[in-house]
Every structure is written in C-alpha cells, then in structure tokens.
C-alpha cells in the first residue's frame, strides 16, 4: 500500500511552491506571409520569457496577447488531440502544443507554416487537399448489413482484431506526415501518407468489406506506388500512427505478399 506523508503545519509553510527555474528569455522568430499582399514570407522576431514547461504554442500565444495580435495561428485543444497546430519548428514539422521550448535546446526558435500545404496566412495552412484525400479513402466501415438493422447484433471484435487497426485510428489529421514526406514535396497529386494510412486502417478492420474498393482507389499513378518507404512520415507522427508501416502492409496486398 502506498504511504502518503502529510507534511506538518510547520513544514507546510516552508514547502510552498517556489519557482524552480527563472524564466529564460528566448527569441521567437515567426514567419509572416499574407498571400494576397506579400510576395515573400518575412520573419518577425520577438524576445519572450519562457519557463521549463512553456510550449511553442504558448510562446506564440504570448506574442499574440502581448506583442502582436495580428499573427495568424490555428489551434484548439492545446493537448495534441485536435491536429490544428502543426507547423515547422526549427525546420521540422511538429505540433506546437506538444513541443516544449526547453526540449528544443535552442535560444532561437523559428516557426514556419508546414511545408507542402498552401499558406492561408502566417502559420495557418490550408487542409483542403488532405481532407479531400482522406474522404476519397472512404473512411467508414463498408458492408451490406448494419448494426442497426432490427434483429442483428453488434459486430463483435476480439482485442486481437482491434489491435490490427487501432493505432491507425489514432490519426488526428494534423498533416505532419504529409509535410515531411519526400514524395509530397514534389508530387501535388499524391494521396500522401495520411490518406494511405487511413485506407489501411479500414482494410485491416475485420468488420469492413470494402478492401477491394479501397485497393482500387490507392492503386493509381499518384497513389500507393509513389511511396518509397523513406519513413519520414512515421518519424514525425505525434500519435504513433506509423503511416509508413500502414502503407507497406497495404502494398503487401497489392503485391500478393498478403491475402
């Protein structure tokens, strides 16, 4: 049994929380770009105080609240769940709310919009293509009968069945994978790791009967064959989805390695 020591009244006074670290000052460089006015992005620099626990998103919001409210940034959950705050942080795609300044280990932090997505303004990018490719993968269970048909039961799955697709269903559509992908960098019609991984998520679900349809969708010239297994998508994915694995397993079906 765990024993919890209750501090005596005299100790309590002295153990009041004292800041363990003084705020550090860092330089935050934010890429500014408005496609309707600017021809080139520029950087705005801000000196801001940060604590050990300050995230990049908090740093940006500090600037927005105190120094320049016109900075465009998208965020919502602040806890790596909504997939809104992906950006390039010191050159690499990451979630701003999930990256602590202290982890970066640099006095200068540069934030830029994610590559391979059109810029709406500053740090906010356009997800139209990602969402439309995601939809093309038919991200739903396909079968003739349904759980809500009278007289039928729910589709039972064992934990083992669940494990086959669970990690791929953790995707938050943040787009970091698409922004790290080398094929995405040059091929504007490529489905991308996000969409391909979602195709596999449903193919691997034993409730689903749409495998044939989905394999047909990804088996096209800007589809699965453009993946060269460089692994960069999985390198940056913040949720452990591992799109590179999903894509190779999906391709296994097309190549006849898997049934």
């Amino acid at each position, binding site marked *: 049994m765990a024993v919890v020591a209750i501090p005596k009244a005299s100790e309590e006074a002295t153990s009041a929380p004292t800041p363990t670290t003084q705020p550090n000052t860092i330089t935050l460089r934010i890429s500014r770009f408005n496609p309707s006015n600017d021809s080139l992005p520029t950087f705005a620099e801000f000196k801001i105080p940060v604590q050990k626990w300050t995230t990049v998103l908090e740093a940006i919001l500090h600037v927005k609240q105190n120094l320049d409210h016109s900075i465009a940034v998208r965020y919502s959950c602040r806890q790596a769940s909504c997939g809104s705050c992906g950006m390039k942080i010191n050159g690499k795609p990451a979630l701003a709310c999930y990256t602590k300044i202290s982890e970066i280990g640099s006095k200068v932090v540069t934030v830029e919009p994610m590559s391979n997505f059109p*810029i709406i303004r500053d740090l906010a990018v356009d997800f139209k293509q990602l969402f439309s490719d995601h939809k093309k993968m038919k991200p739903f269970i396909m079968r003739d009968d349904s759980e809500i048909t009278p007289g039928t039961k729910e589709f039972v799955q064992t934990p083992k069945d669940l494990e086959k697709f669970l990690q791929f269903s953790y995707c938050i559509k943040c787009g970091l994978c698409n922004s790290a992908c080398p094929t995405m*960098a040059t091929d*504007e019609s490529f489905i991308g790791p996000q969409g391909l991984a979602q195709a596999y998520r449903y193919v691997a679900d034993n409730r689903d009967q749409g495998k044939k349809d989905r394999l047909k969708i990804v088996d096209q010239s800007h589809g699965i064959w453009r993946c060269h297994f*460089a*692994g960069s998508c999985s*390198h940056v994915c913040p949720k452990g989805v591992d799109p590179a694995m999903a894509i190779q397993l999906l391709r296994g079906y097309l190549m006849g390695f898997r049934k």
Partner: protein
Amino acid sequence: MAERLSNREGIRGMANPTRYGIERVAYWLQRLTGLGLLAYLIGHIYETSSIVNGKVAWEKMLELTQTPQGHIILTIVIGMCVYHTANGIRVMLGHGGIGVGKPGEPEYPYKAASLNYKQRLCIWVSIALAALAMMYGAAVLFGD
C-alpha cells in the same frame, strides 16, 4: 509563384537527407546511387560499344579508363552497386510489408515500429558492405 502558394518543398526538400533520421538518408542514397548507376550504365554501353569499331578503338578506349581517375570512378561505382543492391533488397521486402513491424497499441513516446532496429541495421550493413567492397576494389585496381 505557384511553388510559393502551394508551399511545396520541391526537389530541394525531397533531396535533403538531414532531417528525418537514417531511413531518409537511406532513401536519398538509394536515389543517388540509382542515378549514378544509370549514368554508369550509359557510359558503360558507350565504352563497350567501341568494340564494333575494331580492336584498336577498343584498346584505345580501355586505355582511357586505365587511369587513376578511371580507377576512382570504378571504385565509386562498386560502392554504389553494392549499396544500391543491398539496400534495394531491404526496400523491396519492406514494400511487400516484410520486416516493417506489427501493429499494436501505441504507447508514449510513440516510437514507430516500422523504423525498427532491423531496418536500421540493414541500412548500416548496406553502407558497411559498400565501404568494404570499395576498399577491396580499390586495392585490386590500384594494386599492381
């Protein structure tokens, strides 16, 4: 302008191997060695086709390649060939879903199973084999 609006990284981003671990380096080397081998193959066909112009032309062509520069180029070709084949076998198996890990419940800190030690080991072995082959090749070419 279109590039700016789409914000795509383009060839420069694609060919930048520095940001995403050894797997991206392996990808970059595979492309580079693939292109190198293609260039060599074309040169090689040009070189060997000189035989249709007779023995003299053939020997003149051979002489052209029997130089220190020629030997250095051949040593690099040996390295490219070995790396490209060894890593190519890894990539082909991976493309079929072999050796890319098994799906499971993701746990913090979410290390991707497809970037596993077997894949990394194969990449390093490909590089090491290429280096060994280059050393052996250079010893034979430059030895008397």
